[in-house]
């Protein structure tokens, strides 16, 4: 029933791309730290590929996590899942050609009209390759999430029931609430289909403008749509991956992690807030309607509540005095909840308008998302990789894996914190060169990054070993093996 080969392909491609993108991250930090001389065009090309690649790869791997657990409850189309992978790789190739062969470097935010007005740094071809690449990747994901949504509707009747609104309303007992995988799947289907509609519109718009520059569009609306797409899509990564935490911690502790009313309300809140709070990216556009900006702050605060009160709290409660047997998978799952929670703090601080006024687009911003992506979402993906290697391949971990585990925590935290420190020092984000006062943290981060890459490589190596194993009867035997 579960198509492990496809899942493995998703994870290994996602994991490897993440690893490679870390490499580009190190190069950028070292260049900013003043020890590596990198020409600005190369720096910005690396920056473009780093952002695009990280988000794309993490979303790819996260969708495999969701697919694995969701397909145990609803009927998902294997063909669509396969098509998404093919489209992703096709799009990726176009993006890579656009960036490296045609010097395209508009950052993954490609704010209109930058793809067209590049000050002659790149031509129409580069921009079109990149934009079409993104469009193709988007189509793949759109198909995947439509399939997710349709499968849930088929099983549950409607998306409202997928989010358990009938349970919230009291029409149904709490014990009949949908499984966490279904709730998360519903939420992600809703927000990502919305995000991808916005994304397709704004990408097509950029394509039209690139082909025919006399067609102009409203730049403020373009910015809104771009962030509505980018913010939601990036956010959804963690909501897809978190399913592994629900499943794993419940199994390892032998304590049920069932949805109750509070849980359901929390997820419904996340659904709505995730769609609304992209405006916190635009707090420094005073031409925006003021109420939208205030919403940006208020709901960014509120969006911290579901995770702080329900998800993280639930994780702590389930682990507390449970006699859990720690292994790499459960350790990473627990770590990821820590990463997510701790990453919420600088995010909320930055969403405060008065703070944003002096911190927006400083390195504080990458600081907070490296924290909850690097210590949160991506760690969930690694947790799933170790879980799969164990239950499906019966692969044992070595001491090296544990060394990698702890060095990953330290180095990823170091990378995030150096960004935050830089942000507090007002270091602007996305600068190819730094003045001497700003170089220290960047250099520190670059060096930490090298160790981070080593740790991640060990994670990936473990997973590759599992893939390369032969003559193992692959099946889901977790119950016997864990307890």
């Amino acid at each position, binding site marked *: 029933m579960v198509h492990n080969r496809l899942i493995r392909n998703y994870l290994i491609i996602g994991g490897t791309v993440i690893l490679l993108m870390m490499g580009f991250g190190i190069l950028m930090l070292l260049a900013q730290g003043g020890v590596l001389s990198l020409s600005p065009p190369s720096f910005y090309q690396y920056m473009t590929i780093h952002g695009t690649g990280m988000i794309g790869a993490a979303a790819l791997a996260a969708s495999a996590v969701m697919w694995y657990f969701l397909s145990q409850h609803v009927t998902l189309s294997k063909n669509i899942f396969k098509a998404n992978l093919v489209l992703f790789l096709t799009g990726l190739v176009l993006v890579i050609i656009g960036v490296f062969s045609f010097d395209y470097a508009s950052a993954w935010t490609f704010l209109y009209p930058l793809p067209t007005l590049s000050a002659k740094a790149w031509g129409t071809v580069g921009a079109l390759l990149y934009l079409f690449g993104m469009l193709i990747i988007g189509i793949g994901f759109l198909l995947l999430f439509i399939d997710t949504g*349709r499968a849930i509707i088929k099983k549950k009747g409607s998306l409202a029931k997928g989010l358990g609104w009938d349970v919230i309303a009291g029409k149904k007992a709490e014990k009949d609430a949908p499984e966490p995988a279904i709730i998360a799947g519903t939420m992600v289907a809703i927000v990502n289909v919305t995000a991808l509609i916005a994304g397709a519109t704004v990408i097509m718009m950029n394509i039209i403008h690139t082909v025919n520059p006399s067609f102009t569009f409203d730049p403020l609306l373009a910015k809104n749509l771009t962030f509505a797409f980018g913010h939601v899509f990036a956010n959804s990564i963690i909501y897809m991956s978190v399913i592994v935490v629900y499943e794993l911690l419940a199994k390892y502790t032998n304590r049920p992690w069932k949805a109750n009313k509070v849980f359901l309300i929390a997820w419904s809140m996340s659904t709505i807030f995730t769609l609304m709070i992209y405006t916190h990216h635009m707090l420094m556009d005073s031409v925006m309607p003021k109420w939208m900006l205030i919403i940006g702050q208020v709901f960014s605060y509120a969006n911290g509540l579901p995770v702080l009160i329900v998800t993280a709290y639930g994780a702590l409660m389930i682990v507390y005095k449970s006699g859990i047997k720690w292994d790499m998978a459960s350790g990473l799952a627990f770590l990821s909840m820590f990463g997510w929670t701790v990453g919420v703090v600088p995010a909320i601080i930055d969403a405060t308008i008065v703070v944003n006024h002096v911190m927006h687009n400083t390195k504080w911003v990458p600081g907070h998302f490296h924290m909850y992506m690097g210590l949160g979402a991506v760690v969930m993906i690694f947790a799933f990789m170790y879980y799969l290697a164990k239950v499906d391949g019966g692969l044992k971990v070595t001491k090296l894996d544990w060394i990698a585990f702890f060095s990953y925590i330290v180095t990823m935290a170091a990378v995030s914190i150096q960004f935050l420190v830089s942000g507090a020092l007002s270091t602007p984000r996305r600068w190819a060169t730094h003045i001497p006062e700003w170089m220290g943290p960047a250099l520190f981060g670059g060096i930490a990054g090298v160790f981070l890459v080593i740790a991640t490589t060990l994670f990936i190596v473990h997973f590759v070993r599992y893939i390369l194993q032969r003559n193992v009867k692959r099946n889901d035997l977790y119950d016997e093996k864990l307890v």
Partner: protein
Amino acid sequence: MMKLAILFYILLLAPGTREGLESVMVLHMFLQLPLLILVGILLHGNRDWRFLEKWNENGVAGMLLAVGVLIFWMLPRSLDDALTEIGIEVWKFVSLPLLGFLWRNSWRKIVGIFKSFLYINFLSMFGLLAWLYLGTPVQICNNYLINEQQIVGAVYLSIVLVSILYLLYLVFVRGLEEEAI
């Protein structure tokens, strides 16, 4: 059904209605074009059309052609050319009924997920066109005034809004009994 379709077609071809509908951009785009599509749908009716069972087995071929024609008529160029070039005008009266015919034939045959995909795709395409026609300061169609362009944009926008509401109704309230979307 078929008689009705032919009658309708002749009516649309009549010089009076034709010129009347084409003189105003919004009527041209949102009345004449859809009515021509309707002709094709009526022409198809409820018949089986045996040969299409073979040639349009899973609906993909028909749908591709239909969508291709539809996108062609959304290019601002085509609308302009239909007024100035007789060849394009003839093509309009041939291709759009064909579109309706193929659409009717294929919609029931294609897999559910592609219906959803098409629906969602048109949301973003119509939204884009609304944005283009409403916002751009340059004249997109040479044969129509700029303010006509904006009315067209407004109609596109309203179509998008209604479609979004309908979609929300479907996925949150009614659910997807097959063929619903």
